[in-house]
């Protein structure tokens, strides 16, 4: 017998802040619900609600972060969970819960902080949009869902948040649904990520069938804890994989879909059809990073069975996919002209770096790049938004130019973001986080190719960013109406993000690997000898060299010159053929067009034919048979049955005439009959009970 109950009794005595952790996603969600009920003209209230709720979440996240920090300072690895049973069906039950540990604490602070800044920025950016309240409704919903993903202690809760995040992404990409391109992009994003999600769901179901729980941590009974992992390792799957490895790969498919890894990256560039703050928040800083976060979250599962210093099949796949995505996307970015599209490919590329970092260096390496990237990529997108805003909606870099004079603040912050992304040495966070990944790649035991791929990617990154900045901010103005600087509500978040883009590198230098120690709950001290590790300085030198090479190459080709929009690109003049390939995004979309979509087209034709010919024919045959039977019946009816019925109906009509005399339409007649009937009934009852 099915028995469904919802009991909300936490199983563990957790600290007060962990008990209240659910408020962090809940408050923006509630705000979203309230905003959904508001009318469109209520701009101020909706923006206030969204920003206020997220500020509250930020505050709580900071408290949670402080709690974890305090625990760490006392030498304890903080991992507090609150679990509860969601569905109880017979003896088996599905549990949900949330967890507070260094990983989720860091992500909470990042998501709420970046989110808050982007919300504030949106007030300025979306100022003239008629669907202002709808925008903030979706954004708040997104923030809530994303925070839900972050605090989830259950693969199921994570998946719920994951799908909600996908939904809001769909809604926001198609925010200007009047534009056909936006509507198509939204559908594309939704369907493409769904492919990954199906595999992810398969992995979840498999995991549940193997371990009977979806909780990550549950006092030794969670899926990420030793007992369950040992069980998974003992279970062989196909192709020489263990169950743990196979599930890990399935989960990685979901992550690849969401994080735009090869070959499911095609939706992300098109997603730039959405408003720019959306691109910044969802498609650069947070949602696409959710895939990386997912891998980091289930890292024990991915790593299960690895020997000391070794790696697993799952992690190897992650590494290869990440490294090739990094180079692949960076190559395409070189030949793009849309300011946001360049950034989108750059995001894909950087996500590849993170994946590779996770695969080769562990959670800390990947996560560090995730955090720094979130800040500088949000900065770049918001800067791009500011540029677009200032250029009256123009997105083509060839039609800009010389903006450093018109938009000084935007230029300054954009330059900081760009240098951070390129990995300009010492002062910018990107340098340190990318360096961590390169170092891990250098020491990887399986192969050296990823290292070379990533170094090449770094060179390309520096090159295409220089190209973009050269086009946009240097040279002379090639557009129509002169550009103007954006209002303070937009530039202020830029400045704050720029500060973070520079300063965040300090917490992850080899001399003071604070971030890594925090995630792994080790003690840390400041030590110059961190730089003295063999090969490290050489590596840093290499990467610096590569960056300068990229910057210099870019500056040489694009700096200060301002080709007309109609003129072919400098590179196109030298090598038109590969340039064409790159401009057309290496034909991945077309490949899908001739393979997947063509197959579906063909299959739809087949199904259509089947429907028309086979099933339709069968149905038509049956219909014919029934029609024949019906004709036969009609003959019978008209000759035999009707006569009898007519006779009966005449009888009924005459008796109905008798009865209709009672139906006078007078209420009191009815009442009278009713009363008589009651009296008679009472008499019968009493009489019968007497006997």
């Amino acid at each position: 017998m099915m028995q469904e109950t919802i009991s909300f009794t936490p199983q563990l005595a957790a600290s007060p802040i962990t008990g209240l952790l659910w408020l962090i996603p809940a408050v923006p969600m509630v705000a979203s619900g309230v905003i959904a009920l508001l009318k469109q003209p209520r701009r101020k209230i909706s923006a206030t609600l969204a920003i206020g709720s997220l500020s509250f979440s930020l505050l709580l996240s900071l408290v949670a972060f402080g709690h974890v920090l305090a625990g760490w300072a006392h030498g304890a690895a903080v991992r507090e969970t609150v679990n509860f049973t969601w569905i109880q069906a017979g003896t088996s039950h599905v549990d949900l819960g949330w967890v507070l540990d260094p990983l989720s604490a860091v992500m909470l602070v990042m998501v709420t902080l970046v989110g808050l800044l982007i919300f504030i920025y949106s007030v300025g950016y979306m100022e003239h949009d008629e669907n202002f309240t709808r925008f903030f409704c979706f954004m708040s919903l997104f923030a809530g869902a994303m925070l839900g993903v972050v605090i989830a202690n259950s693969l199921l809760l994570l998946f719920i948040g994951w799908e909600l995040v996908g939904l809001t992404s769909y809604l926001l990409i198609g925010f200007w649904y009047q534009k056909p391109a936006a509507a198509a992009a939204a559908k594309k994003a939704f369907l493409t990520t769904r492919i990954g999600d199906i595999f992810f769901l398969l992995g979840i179901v498999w995991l549940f069938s193997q371990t009977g729980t979806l909780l990550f941590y549950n006092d030794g009974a969670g899926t990420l804890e030793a007992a369950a992992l040992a069980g998974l390792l003992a279970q062989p799957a196909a192709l020489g994989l263990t169950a743990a490895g196979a599930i890990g790969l399935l989960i990685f498919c979901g992550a690849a879909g969401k994080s735009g890894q090869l070959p499911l990256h095609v939706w992300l560039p098109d997603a730039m059809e959405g408003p720019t703050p959306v691109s910044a928040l969802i498609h650069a800083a947070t949602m696409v990073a959710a895939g990386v976060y997912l891998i980091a979250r289930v890292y024990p599962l991915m790593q299960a069975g690895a020997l000391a210093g070794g790696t697993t099949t799952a992690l190897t796949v992650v590494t290869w996919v990440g490294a090739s995505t990094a180079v692949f996307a960076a190559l395409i970015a070189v030949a793009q002209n849309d300011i946001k599209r360049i950034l989108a490919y750059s995001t894909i590329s950087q996500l590849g770096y993170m994946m590779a970092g996770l695969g080769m260096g562990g959670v800390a390496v990947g996560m560090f790049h995730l955090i720094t990237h979130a800040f500088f990529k949000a900065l770049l997108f918001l800067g791009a938004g500011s540029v677009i805003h200032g250029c009256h909606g123009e997105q083509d870099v060839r039609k800009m130019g010389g903006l450093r004079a018109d938009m000084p603040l935007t230029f300054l912050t954009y330059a900081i973001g760009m240098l951070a992304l390129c990995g300009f040495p010492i002062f910018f966070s990107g340098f340190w986080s990318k360096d961590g990944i390169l170092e891990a790649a250098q020491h990887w035991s399986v192969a050296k190719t990823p290292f070379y791929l990533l170094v090449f990617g770094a060179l390309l990154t520096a090159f295409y960013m220089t190209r973009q900045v050269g086009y946009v901010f240097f040279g002379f103005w090639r557009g129509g109406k002169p550009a103007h600087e954006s209002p303070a509500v937009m530039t202020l978040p830029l400045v704050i993000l720029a500060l973070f883009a520079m300063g965040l590198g300090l917490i992850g230098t080899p001399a003071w690997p604070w971030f890594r120690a925090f995630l792994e709950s080790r003690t840390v001290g400041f030590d110059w000898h961190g730089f003295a590790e063999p090969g490290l300085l050489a590596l840093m030198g290499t990467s610096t060299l590569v960056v300068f090479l990229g910057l210099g190459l870019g500056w040489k080709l694009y700096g200060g010159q301002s080709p007309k929009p109609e003129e072919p690109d400098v590179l196109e003049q030298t090598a038109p053929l590969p340039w064409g390939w790159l401009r057309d995004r290496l034909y991945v979309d077309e490949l899908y067009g001739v393979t997947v979509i063509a197959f579906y087209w063909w299959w739809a034709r087949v199904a259509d034919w089947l429907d028309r010919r086979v099933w339709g024919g069968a149905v038509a045959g049956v219909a014919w048979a029934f029609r024949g039977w019906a004709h036969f019946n009609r003959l019978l009816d008209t000759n035999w049955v009707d006569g009898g019925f007519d006779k009966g109906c005449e009888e009924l009509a005459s008796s109905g005439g008798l009865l209709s005399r009672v139906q006078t339409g007078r209420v009191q007649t009815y009442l009278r009959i009713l009363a008589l009937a009651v009296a008679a009934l009472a008499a019968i009852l009493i009489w019968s009970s007497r006997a």
Partner: protein
Amino acid sequence: MSFAFYLIAALTLAGGLAAVLLKNTVHCALALTVAFAGQALLFLDLDAQFAGFAQILVYIGAVAILVVFAILLTKGSETPKGGVYSKHWLAGLVIAAAVFSMLGWAVIWSVHAVPRGPVGTPAVTVLDIGNALMSRYVLPLEIVALLLTAAMIGAVIIAMHEKERAK
């Protein structure tokens, strides 16, 4: 059977009879309130204080006023031409008498079969009633609340004057 009971019963029945028999509709309504008041007194005689006061509050304070309003709104206080009784008044009277004889017979025949409760006044306070309403009878209470809301909306909609929109 105390003297008070006979007095109150007589008052109630007289009020009821007057409500049914009088010619002027408003007088009928006023006689009806007398019957309601007598009924409330009967409740008090039965130690049902709460029900008695509720009876006064609801019936005299609301239902009687409603009836009076309805009479005035339908101009019902004027005596109609064809008399106040319907054509088939004799049939109605006979049926009512039949029902009464049936009920009276049933009461007299079966009342001794009812098991007797404890002698003396039952100690029921308003607090007990409140507790019962909030625990055992909470579902009926909610349903009645819903019903009252529905009835209120329904009555308003039925009686609302549909104005033709001239604009």
